[in-house]
């Protein structure tokens, strides 16, 4: 049996399944047919119903995956066959040639300008925008150049330029260009497979009937997303085919069977108004049924923002003047017309990805009549396929939103983990040994500075050489280097190798997305990862001052000066290790609760299920044959203890280390657990004579009595209280099968905590200066993690004093306590007041 899993498809579902599996101790091979990861989520501008920036949300996840030594990304590849059986599959993977060695390419882009072949339509932008015959496929990882074989002069004719070697080969210092590459088939051994190949817009003749490809400025929703995206061909400005801005845009939702198309149209319309408040937008649809409350709320917000939603049929566009479109339609039995609309966006139905059929044939699994992955007859579990040990999640099953795809990915991960529980951890690479130099706070700072050009993002605007020269003149800065893409780690490690630096200053992009990456490279160079500072030249400088390169360069100098002052005062810190109680508590014997407990127990983890009814079969929602089978399976597992006729008493503790009282007619029993899942239905109000776990765990309900969780589409099962999760009827109304998947998804979230012996967390947390703290308690309420507690203590003379205590395990290091404290009695590690004041002074000194 193999402790590794193949995940096919690196969109949001595939990436999520991968990170869940690694978190539970399984190595992952992530195969993606495109040259970069991210899937459709990376192509779209914003997500519904949270209206979050899609690429900003997914980028940190992509980097996390790209830098995880236990996730092997095999991009630009296809699965050719899968043989063997559950637990021991052999997978043949065909790797397509890039004609660029990814191990050598450092994404410097020196080969791009010398390539004589331009005007290559960009596939990632659906044909909009143009690149050279050698280019990046997308802005996302793995960021390696790629040669288009059907456009490259050398590959087509064996010649390019007037020299012996083609210009790209001459320009590449790292000798990464490799025209000899051929398709290569390799073999992987894995224990389980998860298919997450997503969906594509269904392009049929119907699109042409509505003018797509025939009339100017008629396009599909995904094409429109690329125009809205800041990383798209127009930099986020919605432009028509002639380059003029669009003021009036209408959408037509061609599929009313699923809410996804309608929600896509509303999100795009809302995004258009957010970018241009003078725009007029209409969404035409044919009676789409929107039952989910979060979707309805989003639609209401869109309408309040002047998105006009029109129930329409017989929609018929005709070409107008000056590239405009006239759209006639029927609404409420009357003929109407939108005359002279600047752009018309068609939202076609979503179909299985184009590769699904070939993949299904290659690996011997069935598709349903619509081409989505199917299961064996008689098997109704949504994420099963027709082949045991091969699971499916996300839009490869049916069109769905990103939040639902995330839940299914978690559920698929929990199925794979249950199958391979006996070999958990056996295929994982050991963590790299840390060999940090012995650096103390007292050592004279010696700073190595790296300025990352981030391709054209920074290097294209700033006077980068002037900035480097200036940075070299700053106190304690002993070396400055420039890098095309510093995040690849090549330059930073080169700088640190064998040198006696004790601090690293990076001028680059956002720490939100890249701090972990640069910390890893700093550590790889032998310096404590907390002795590194990133100055955000990209977001704070070049993006916001893109029209003024001179002033942007001056601001960049100021930011680098501030960064150098701060990093000089940084202290080496060690990660915090917290032991974990290897068990979970599931509250509520609903289908979700039962499914969650079962998957945890099948994964060889200890679980306690608490239900107030006298028998799980009495719970009304459990009275289906599917759930009955789950209850029977659960009863057979020794590591699952079911408490019926039970209530919860006191619950205390924090992620990894909770303690709960379970109260039955036989008395009270205390259990130590690392994580808690709430799977109760609406009738299961928490407060009882024995306790109120909702209050003790800081859980909140919405006005309609469902639990309120963490914000964001990627965390639908998470509460803000770390280590506590919600699923099924605790989240929203749903059917039995969805409730089971929710429970199984929650099982994966829990297993990510309790399958480990300890948690490792950042030491960037708050520290109380007891000599200054007078226990005023102003810092307690603002703490979002409920990490601060007020304590009283005795003095020898009998007087009582107060101070606060910070729980290191849950503190987020957000700094709210520091900002609130009137006595300067609390600070965040490496954000000490003196560091911040040094930065402030450095600005005013220069001014």
């Amino acid at each position: 049996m193999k402790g590794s899993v193949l995940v096919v498809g690196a969109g949001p579902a595939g990436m999520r399944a991968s990170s869940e599996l690694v978190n539970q101790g399984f190595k992952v091979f992530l195969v993606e047919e495109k040259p970069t990861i991210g899937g459709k989520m990376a192509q779209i501008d914003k997500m519904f119903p949270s209206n979050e920036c899609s690429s900003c949300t997914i980028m940190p996840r992509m980097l996390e995956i790209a830098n995880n030594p236990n996730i092997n990304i095999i991009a630009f590849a296809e699965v050719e066959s899968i043989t063997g059986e559950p637990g021991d599959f052999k997978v043949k993977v065909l790797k397509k040639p890039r004609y660029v060695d990814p191990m050598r390419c450092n994404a410097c882009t020196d080969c791009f300008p010398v390539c004589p072949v331009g005007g290559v339509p960009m596939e990632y932008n659906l044909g909009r925008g143009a690149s050279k015959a050698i280019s990046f496929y997308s802005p996302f990882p793995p960021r390696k150049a790629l040669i288009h074989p059907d456009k490259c002069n050398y590959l087509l004719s064996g010649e390019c330029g007037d020299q012996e070697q083609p210009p790209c080969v001459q320009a590449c210092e790292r000798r990464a260009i490799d025209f000899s590459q051929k398709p290569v088939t390799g073999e992987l051994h894995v224990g389980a497979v998860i298919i997450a190949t997503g969906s594509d817009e269904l392009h049929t003749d119907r699109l042409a009937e509505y003018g797509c490809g025939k009339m100017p400025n008629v396009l599909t929703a995904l094409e429109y997303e690329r125009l809205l995206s800041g990383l798209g061909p127009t930099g986020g400005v919605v432009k028509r085919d002639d380059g003029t801005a669009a003021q009036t845009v209408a959408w037509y939702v061609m599929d009313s069977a699923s809410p996804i198309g309608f929600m896509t149209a509303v999100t795009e319309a809302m995004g258009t108004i957010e970018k241009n408040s003078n725009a007029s937008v209409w969404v035409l649809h044919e009676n789409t049924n929107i039952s989910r409350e979060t979707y309805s709320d989003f639609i209401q917000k869109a309408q309040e923002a002047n998105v006009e939603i029109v129930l329409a049929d017989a929609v018929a566009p005709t070409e107008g003047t000056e590239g405009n479109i006239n759209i006639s339609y029927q609404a409420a039995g009357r003929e109407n017309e939108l005359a002279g609309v600047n752009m018309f966006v068609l939202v076609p139905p979503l179909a299985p990805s184009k590769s699904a059929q070939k993949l299904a044939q290659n690996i011997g699994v069935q598709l349903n009549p619509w081409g989505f992955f199917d299961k064996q007859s008689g098997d109704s579990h949504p994420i099963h396929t027709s082949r045991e040990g091969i699971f499916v999640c996300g839009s490869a099953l049916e069109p769905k939103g990103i939040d639902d795809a995330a839940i299914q990915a978690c559920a698929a991960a929990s199925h794979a983990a249950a199958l391979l529980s006996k070999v958990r951890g056996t295929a994982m690479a050991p963590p790299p040994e840390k060999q940090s130099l012995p650096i103390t706070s007292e050592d004279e700072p010696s700073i190595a500075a790296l300025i990352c050009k981030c391709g054209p993002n920074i290097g294209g605007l700033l006077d980068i050489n002037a900035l480097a020269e200036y940075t070299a003149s700053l106190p304690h800065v002993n070396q400055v280097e420039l890098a095309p893409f510093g995040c690849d780690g090549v330059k930073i490690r080169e700088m640190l190798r064998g040198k006696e630096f004790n601090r690293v200053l990076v001028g680059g992009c956002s720490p939100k997305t890249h701090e972990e990456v640069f910390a890893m490279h700093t550590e790889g160079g032998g310096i404590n990862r907390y002795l590194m500072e990133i100055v955000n030249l990209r977001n704070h400088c070049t993006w916001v001052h893109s029209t003024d390169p001179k002033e942007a360069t001056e601001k960049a100098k100021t930011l680098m000066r501030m960064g150098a002052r701060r990093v000089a005062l940084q202290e080496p810190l060690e990660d915090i290790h917290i032991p974990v109680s290897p068990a979970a508590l599931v509250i509520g014997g609903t289908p979700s609760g039962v499914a969650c407990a079962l998957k945890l127990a099948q994964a060889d983890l200890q679980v306690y299920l608490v239900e107030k009814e006298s028998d799980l079969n009495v719970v009304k929602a459990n009275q289906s044959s599917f759930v009955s089978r789950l209850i029977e399976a659960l009863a057979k597992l020794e590591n699952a203890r079911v408490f019926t006729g039970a209530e919860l008493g006191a619950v205390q503790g924090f992620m990894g280390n909770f303690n709960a009282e379970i109260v039955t007619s036989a008395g009270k029993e205390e259990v130590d657990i690392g994580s808690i899942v709430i799977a109760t239905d609406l009738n299961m109000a928490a407060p009882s004579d024995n306790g109120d776990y909702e209050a003790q765990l800081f859980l909140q309900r919405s006005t309609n009595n469902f639990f309120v969780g963490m914000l964001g589409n990627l965390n639908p099962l998470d509460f803000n209280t770390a280590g506590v999760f919600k699923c099924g009827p605790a989240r929203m109304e749903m059917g039995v099968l969805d409730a089971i998947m929710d429970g199984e998804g929650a099982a994966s979230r829990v297993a990510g905590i309790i399958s480990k012996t300890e948690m490792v967390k950042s030491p960037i947390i708050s520290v109380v200066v007891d000599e200054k703290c007078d226990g005023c308690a102003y810092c307690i309420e603002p703490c979002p993690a409920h990490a601060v507690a007020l304590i009283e203590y005795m003095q020898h003379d009998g007087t009582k004093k107060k101070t606060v205590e910070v729980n290191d395990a849950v503190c987020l290091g957000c700094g709210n306590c520091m900002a609130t404290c009137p006595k300067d009695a609390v600070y965040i590690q490496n954000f000490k007041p003196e560091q911040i004041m040094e930065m402030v002074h450095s600005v005013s000194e220069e001014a």
Partner: protein
Amino acid sequence: MPSLSAKIDGKKFMWDKFMYASETEAKEKMAVYEKEGFEAACLTEEGEYLVYTRKVITEITLE
């Protein structure tokens, strides 16, 4: 000067700012504090006995 606070079994305790010459003396004081509802602990430092206490306040009034 001993540290004003100490982590004992993962919990923060505060020193009562007195050095007790004997364990008996320290334990007597601990009993007094415990009677007042405080958790108390005794640590030794350079032959002296130090008493630490704590009590979590859940009813918080901001002034």
